């Protein structure tokens, strides 16, 4: 069921972004560019500002300073070409299939095509047997996978994942990462946050290392895990507790 892709919204340029929350600076002068293709992992300890960065890039939060701009030819449709899975996903009080149907309805997809796409996405995500279950009654791991499928059903150009496996056991994490890989091979740009080094090694093509509200480096994954250029990242990789 390949559909012709809309013109690309990427790259994304983040320029001098900063934000204060309750008067406390949480992000400071972020500058980076996200290109189509590689899976970008925003890595850093808890409280570094990973989640804020993601929400600002996705457009859920307005930065206090700086700009977030889509530079691709399809930039005008940027909102509808993205999807996000929150750290604690909120599913709608309806059946699983209806949860996947919702973003398609928002985008004005005709009913018959919607049914087919929901069915196909549930199958690709290995969730077909849950289609008729009520979404809120599922386990945490299942809800996380349904949220991922709901983000996938619109075939977004960019998918933001905020700590996608933070509260899952190894089995559920494996199932989730399988779907994440499938989404990447289908051509979606993935940007995810994690504080889990092992997960970053498994999924990252490039790493943006975030520490205390600053991006300290943006490095291809192999090079980063071999020899990170910032002392903070070296300490983080060695498992030291960062100040």
């Amino acid at each position, binding site marked *: 069921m390949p559909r012709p892709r809309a013109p690309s919204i990427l790259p994304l340029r983040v320029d001098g972004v900063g934000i204060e929350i309750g008067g406390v600076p949480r992000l400071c002068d972020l500058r980076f560019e996200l290109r189509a293709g590689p899976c970008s992992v925003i890595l850093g300890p808890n409280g570094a500002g990973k989640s804020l960065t993601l*929400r600002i890039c*996705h457009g*859920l939060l307005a930065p206090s300073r700086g700009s977030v701009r889509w530079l691709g030819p399809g930039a005008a449709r940027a*909102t*509808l070409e*993205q*999807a*996000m899975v*929150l750290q604690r*996903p*909120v599913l*709608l*009080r309806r059946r699983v299939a209806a949860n996947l149907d*919702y*973003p398609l309805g*928002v*985008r004005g997809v005709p009913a018959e095509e919607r049914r087919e796409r929901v069915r196909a996405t549930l199958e690709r995500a290995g969730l077909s047997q849950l289609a008729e279950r*009520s979404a*809120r*009654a599922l386990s945490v791991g299942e809800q996380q996978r349904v949220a991922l499928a*709901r983000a996938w059903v*619109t075939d977004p150009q960019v998918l933001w994942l905020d700590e996608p496996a933070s509260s899952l056991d190894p089995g559920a994490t494996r199932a989730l990462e399988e779907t994440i890989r499938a989404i990447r091979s289908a051509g979606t740009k993935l940007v995810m946050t994690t504080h889990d080094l092992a997960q970053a090694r498994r999924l990252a093509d490039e790493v943006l290392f975030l520490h205390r509200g600053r991006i300290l480096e943006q490095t291809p994954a192999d090079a980063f895990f071999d020899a990170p250029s910032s002392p903070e990242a070296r300490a983080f990789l060695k498992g030291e507790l960062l100040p």
Partner: protein
Amino acid sequence: MADLVAAFGSAFGLVIGLDPDLLEIVALSLEVSFAALLPAALIGVPLGAVVAVARFPGRRAAIAVLNLGLALPAVVVGLGVYLLLSRSGPLGSLGLLFTPTALVIGQTVLVTPLLAALSRQVFEEHWAEYEETLRSLGAGRVRAVATLVFEARHSLATTLLAGFGRAITEVGVAIIVGGNIQHATRVMTTAITLETSRGDLPLALGLGLVLLAVSLGVNALAQLAQETLRRAEA
């Protein structure tokens, strides 16, 4: 003491024997309160949603005013509607005072702010939970609010039942704008007031029992709605 026992006895007799006077009063009470609940819900719930979701200057003040609805004195509402509908009032020419329509208007005015205040709380809690998700899924404001109504349906059902309970148990509005006229505007609460002061305890007690049963029924329904919700999510 014997009088009291006798009164209870004849009260049960009236209820079980489906006394026509008693039935008429009960029926009018139910009719009026349902008729008031409908417009109150159509105005109050959207108002609550707007105040919960929209950001505008003076919003905190609006919430403070809205919360007055939680403790609006029925007699004051009755007085206000009385002034509005009385012969010399702005709507006096309609001749509505002391009619069932006046009762419906009065109870609508009483219940609308209550529903607005209660549903604002419901919507605000749900909005805090759903806002980022709905925006991320691409929903615009209007669709987001419509989705919120659906997502909050169980809590809103409870809110409506609370509004109905308020309407059917209040006495201030009914006595002032209805006037407790037999076969016209006599509802359960005004009848109880009158019959008690006249000393006709059996009828007052009988009506009291029915009113209690209605309130109990409303609460049972509310609890059922909550439990359905919990079972659906367990």
